[in-house]
């Protein structure tokens, strides 16, 4: 269990460069297709948490839902520099709907 994993941040350069200073692995990508490739690659490697900007996430629903039920990696959406799109909040809502069968909150 004492394996160590990496934390990655994927997004446009300006949004993720700050994470670099903290020691996270940052992968600046230009578009969603590139980000998809990167996520697949990271999922095979030892990456436990991927922070992904919402700007990219909105075009790659398929990859995100593919990893939703896997223990690793956890793909967490963060607002990019352009601001929040509310996708992260929507995802919570969707999880509730999935579990309860109706929107109760």
């Amino acid at each position, binding site marked *: 269990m004492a394996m160590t994993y990496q934390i990655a941040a994927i997004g446009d350069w300006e949004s993720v460069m*700050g994470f670099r200073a903290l*020691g996270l692995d940052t992968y600046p990508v230009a578009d969603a297709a590139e980000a998809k490739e990167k996520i697949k690659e990271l999922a095979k490697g030892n990456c436990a948490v991927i922070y992904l900007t919402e700007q990219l996430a909105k075009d790659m629903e398929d990859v995100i839902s593919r990893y939703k039920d896997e223990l690793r990696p956890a793909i967490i959406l963060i607002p990019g520099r352009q601001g929040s799109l509310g996708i992260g909040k929507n995802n919570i809502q969707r999880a509730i709907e999935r579990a309860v069968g109706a929107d109760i909150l």
Partner: protein
Amino acid sequence: MANITVSPTRMELTRLKGKLRTAQRGHKLLKDKRDELMKQFLETVREVRALRAEVEEELMTVHGAFTVASALMSSEAMEQALLYPKQSVELTMTFQNIMSVNVPVYDFQTQTRSDSDIYPYGFAATSGELDTAVDALGKVFRKLLKLAEIEKSAQLMAEEIEKTRRRVNALEYVMIPNTQEAIRYINMKLDENDRATTIRLMKVKDMILKESLEEKREATAKAVKAFSGQGEGPAEV
């Protein structure tokens, strides 16, 4: 209704009764699991929503700080400043078992000399705003990791709840009624067979009785005839 193809035997009845008992027990257990999971899930979700709102707000502040910093510095200088991180973060992941759902618990170690010394650049060539931005991001990071942990937990729990709910419903609305129906069918069929056997036996008894009665009557008639032929023969003539 659905599976009337069961063979109406006593053995099958015993088997089905056992199956029904197991199904009912399983149904109860799964229902309890679902309820408890739901409770935990809703708690987690509330936490996620609050934390996410907080993190998003703070991150926007951080982005703002970086924007200011990048306005004061050339992008090359900034890239250069952040190019080689002084700190490295390593994550260890352990698991926590919530009602048979494995959820991750993250724990991270930073490899740095001290907490205040996280700036990977010299102060001479960079603006102060960059320090502020990096500092703020460092503070958000803990929350960000906590968010990753509970959001993933929520997702995994949502999946498990969906699965459990389906199982509960399948047992409650399909499996248990079908088995009960089959048991009822077998019971009725067996009773019917019992009645049929009784009736048949009564009929057979009737027939045998009638036959023996007939035989007896015939024998009596013969004897009477023989007797009367012997004793009153002349009188008849």
